[in-house]
């Protein structure tokens, strides 16, 4: 049974390797992004030792870890489903004994593995070159929380991206909603700055949305200075969103297929 999805994983991996140039450009982009954020914060800390509860060490660590998390959580191709709906190649899945969501998830994992192996290499390289002061987290419990949050975030983002991709069942072009989500994600995901530098009341609202759980929350966990209560609360919200996301994804898929089989494409 699972060997099906293992085969999907393998072929996606091979397919990913074919696009070496594309992939390299994509990695170059994320390295540049990392460098940009890194140097902005580095410059800010030239004149100060501490800003909004962050020291130079903690913010630079945050930036590096956020980049790793990006490669794990945000490297998803689930929105590609919209292209397959639009060009009709979805037909190839629907006539086969194959779980649609499982298929895409297996493809995603292959893609993530590819990205992760590169980002680790990149980070090691940058650490060697830039020699930033970094916090190496050694507390096992914290590392466990960090890993758990990252895995949950991976599931959450998959569901979000897949839901957006499936809009193609209803509208011809899903780039509008996708663009919106990307913008919100850049702002409130925590990729550019840790969310807790925002005013407290805004922060509280943002933490109720799914976005900060895609980068900020796991990265913050890694730093290890989140109060137990906050960790607890964070996990409850995150897990709730994962359930909501997966439930929505199943429901949308069901409705979408219903529509598809009624209308053709």
């Amino acid at each position, binding site marked *: 049974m699972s060997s099906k999805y293992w085969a999907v994983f393998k072929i996606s991996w*091979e397919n990913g390797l*074919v*696009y070496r140039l594309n992939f390299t450009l994509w990695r170059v982009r994320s390295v540049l992004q990392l460098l940009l954020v890194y140097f902005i914060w580095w410059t800010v800390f030239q004149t100060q030792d501490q800003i909004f509860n962050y020291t130079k060490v903690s913010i630079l660590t945050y930036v590096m870890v956020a980049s790793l998390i990006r490669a794990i959580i945000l490297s998803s191709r689930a929105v590609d489903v919209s292209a397959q709906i639009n060009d009709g190649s979805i037909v190839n899945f*629907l*006539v*086969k004994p194959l779980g649609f969501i499982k298929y895409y998830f297996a493809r995603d994992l292959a893609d993530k593995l590819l990205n992760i192996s590169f980002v680790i290499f990149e980070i090691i390289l940058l650490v060697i070159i830039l020699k930033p002061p970094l916090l190496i987290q050694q507390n096992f419990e914290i590392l466990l929380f960090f890993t758990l949050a990252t895995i949950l975030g991976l599931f959450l983002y998959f569901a979000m991206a897949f839901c957006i991709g499936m809009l193609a069942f209803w509208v011809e072009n899903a780039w509008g909603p996708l663009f919106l989500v990307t913008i919100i994600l850049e702002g409130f995901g925590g990729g550019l700055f840790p969310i807790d530098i925002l005013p407290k009341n805004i922060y509280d609202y943002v933490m109720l949305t799914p976005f900060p759980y895609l980068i900020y929350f796991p990265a913050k966990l890694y730093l290890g200075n989140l109060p137990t209560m906050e960790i607890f609360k964070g996990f409850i919200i995150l897990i709730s969103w994962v359930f909501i996301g997966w439930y929505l994804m199943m429901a949308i898929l069901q409705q979408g297929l219903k529509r598809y089989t009624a209308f053709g494409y």
Partner: protein
Amino acid sequence: MAVILVKNLKKYYRVNQKEPGLWGSIKSLIARKYYDVKAVNGISFEIKEGELVGFIGPNGAGKTTTLKVLSGLLYPTSGSVRVLGYEPFKRQSILQKQFSLIMGQKNQLWWDLPPLESFLLNKEIYEIEDSQFKKKVNELSEMLEVSDILKIQVRKLSLGQRMKCELIAALLHSPKVLFLDEPTIGLDVVAQKTMRDFIKEYNKKFKATIILTSHYMGDVKELCKRVIIINQGKIVYDGLLEKIVNRFAPFKVISIDFEKMAEKEELAEFGKLDEFDGIHAKIQVNKDEVPDKTSRLLSKFEVADLTIEDPSIESIIREVFSNGRV
């Protein structure tokens, strides 16, 4: 046993009526006007195990729609459909493992990888045994003469080679039922012939039940004893191809090359002239009069060459379509 059973099948597409212009699109947002495209409008047929049936009709007749309903891609508006006893739109894997849909214009092969990789993926998806898989790949690629290209990137293959590999990918799980939607579209004469021979042999060898649509009457003539002719969502003929040929064409065509220029008037008594340019003529002659008229033609004219032909299927089908009913 009927492998495919279709009863009073209707498939209407609901289409949102849009008026042109900005105002039109705003209006259509507020008060949506729909109309139904009656793509398939009450068709019934039965296909037995091992039959190879040609499903023909002009553009927009409803052929692809029917095949999509049979494959479980479209939910019928009304009527009942059974394939191997299952309802296709439930998309149960037990049925999906036993049929294949091949559309000439949709590919399943991974574009950037060699066909063999896609085959391996299908092996897992359809849970095919190792030995069976190897046997099948060898067998099919030999039949289609593509054994040497299985490790070349799909994007580097010619259309014909690609279609053959598509066919292999779709046949690895030894489907009992095949829906072929224009499998020879865009292929050159040689590739078309290979494909045809292959389909014929596959049907014989594996007793596969096949529905084939094609706009190339050569395909149909070569492959299908039985044809179902559909026009505007309705079946206008279902029966032996031979029979419809006889009904619409109880005549043969005598094709003659003369040694010397002949006169049109002299030929008129032999039958209706399909073609005539003085030195070459095609005459429609009733079947039972063929021997008599042939000998009279040979004695009356100096004939360089004479052949007796069947009227082209195209011309017959055209006749059927234009008459609407049989």
